[in-house]
């Protein structure tokens, strides 16, 4: 499931990030925000009246906002923490 489709306030883990679909500088910034495979994520708010605004999500202990185009590059997985996810906070 993509991060854009993740229901609000349902804890999940990052499965895969398609870094190549993002501009290099944005990818770098997202990495610096702590977004990485295995990190715990939770979608908190969808902005915009028609649902086209940015998404606020918790990544680890930090809350960050990004546009849907960026969130669509992140594949997430819900359910119990598995091996790869021990990196999540």
């Amino acid at each position, binding site marked *: 499931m993509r991060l854009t489709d993740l229901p609000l306030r349902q804890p999940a883990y990052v499965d895969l990030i398609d870094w190549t679909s993002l501009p290099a500088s944005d990818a*770098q910034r997202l990495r610096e925000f702590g977004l990485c495979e295995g990190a715990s994520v939770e979608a908190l708010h969808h902005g915009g009246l028609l649902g086209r605004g*940015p998404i606020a999500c918790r990544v680890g202990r930090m809350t*960050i*906002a990004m546009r849907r185009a960026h969130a669509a590059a992140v594949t997430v997985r819900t359910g119990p923490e598995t091996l790869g996810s021990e990196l999540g906070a």
Partner: protein
Amino acid sequence: MSALPLVALVGNPNAGKSALFNALTGARQKLGNYPGVTVERKAGRLSLADGRPLELVDLPGTYSLDPASPDEQVTRDVVMGRQAGEKRPDALVIVVDAANLDNHLRFALELIALGLPTIVALNMVDLATRDGLELDAAALSRELGVPVIATVAVRKRGLDHLRTEMEGLLNGAPSPYPAPASAPRDFEATRQEARRIARAGVIRETPSRRLTAAVDRVALHPLAGLALLLALLFVMFQAVYAWSEAPIAMIEGLAEAAATLVRDALPDGILRSFLVDGVINGVGSVVVFLPQILILFFFILMLEATGYMVRAAFLMDGIMAKVGLSGRAFIPLLSSFACAIPGIMATRTISDPKDRLTTILIAPLMTCSARLPVYAVIIGAFIPARDIGFGIGLQGFVLFCLYLAGIVGAMFVALILRLTVTKGASGSFLMEMPKYQWPRPQDVLLGLWQRAVIFLKRAGTIIFTSTVILWLLLSFPRVPEGDPASQVDHSIAGRVASGLNVVLEPIGFNRDISLALIPAMAAREVAVSALATVYSIDAGDDEAALEQSLGDRLKGQWPLPTALAFLAWFIFAPQCISTIAVTRRETNGWKWPLFMVGYLFALAYVAAGLTYWTATALGLA
């Protein structure tokens, strides 16, 4: 460059570097600029326990040593010893947010690997505790190989300890901690190391009461959040009027008393005219707006310090994206409501160059506080102080509409610019959302105090000088004794204005407005002091006329359509030398500032014209 030992504060944005800087240096700080770049250099002095002074610099926050903006580049260059005009720091104080260690320690590891003497300030431990997180500073010290000191910058906790450690470092005391085995190099390895260390430093972690999440459910809600934002802005503009009445009356009283004093003490003549017409009436007419400007800054400081500003950017990103901007641009634009200069400088956090240029070009459309004196004097004179229901005053409402007109104009211009001169890929919106917190009153007061000093300095320099020059040009040549012609018509300034008036008459401007607009190129508020000077000189010895306030005089002399056209002009007109100068600096040349001035004057002319013709056609008088 100073010969004092130099210590740099570095860390992620919002780690509390500036708070720590303020707490350590108190009032002894100096603002400047790094040469060649426009990044602000904030430095201050601090005395160690043994009395030795050292210089502390507050570096721009950054997430890594891979800069994404000019601000971040300065930080990298300073810590690497490559920044012109700054020696390499003798020691670093890395500030990390205790509640966000995984992330902040990654950058800290990168910095520690530089090999400079280093201390880590484990800041915001109070907020970490609020979130149910208990940390072990000693364990972190062992893992990082440098001293780690728990601090709460805003409560001045841990500062003495920090000072003692700094003293030790600068004295070259050997570190009690073994150096870490290996400095990890690549990003991923550093990140994993940071995570490991962060975990090792946790004593206890309990699920927390999440105040921020609860507030955000409302503040970021697509409907409720937007309503809240509009309500906040509306309250802000109402307050500008409602709270300022008493202090304004006080300042006016003082100015009047001063004028009477001078009039009684001095014989009629040039000196008396200079002091009363030029200095007291001219400069006084601007100083009177200090309370309103401080109220405006109070709101903006509060929005920033509470963490709400980023939420506003989040809410606005959808709309900003439609005109090709990023929600990030909302923050510089909102600060431009106070003043376009810090607003334009704040665009440096926008990494996309075209996004940034567009934001710079529209920043002057945000209604800055220098327009308040102009708006306030015209609104006060021409708009009745009526209640239009729900406890909303008509005057505040008109002011709100003027702000709105600036915003709508800016969005419209951005849209056109993004389709033409700043065409390019659409930007992105990536922001960290800080936790909400209540700012300390001292910090807000300090911020207000700094604004007041800047404003009064401006009144004392730019506004004073332009007022004095205008007074000179208005007072000479003198009308010969017995000649019925008015002094203003006869003066140099009056003749120049009559020439300019040929162009401005079609949009409803009279000669006095043309007169005021010339010195107002220096700063918008000067328009008000200039009008005050013109009418003060015009009144001559006419006691009754001298008793009148500027507003009353305008009301007597200007038709309503002219007053409205004057307001419309100032929504757009780029009358501020400092803004033009800062645009030149930030865009490295004259091309963009000239473009900006050109398009804004064109818009001002059209807007004033449309307003005047419409109002006249509607028969408003």
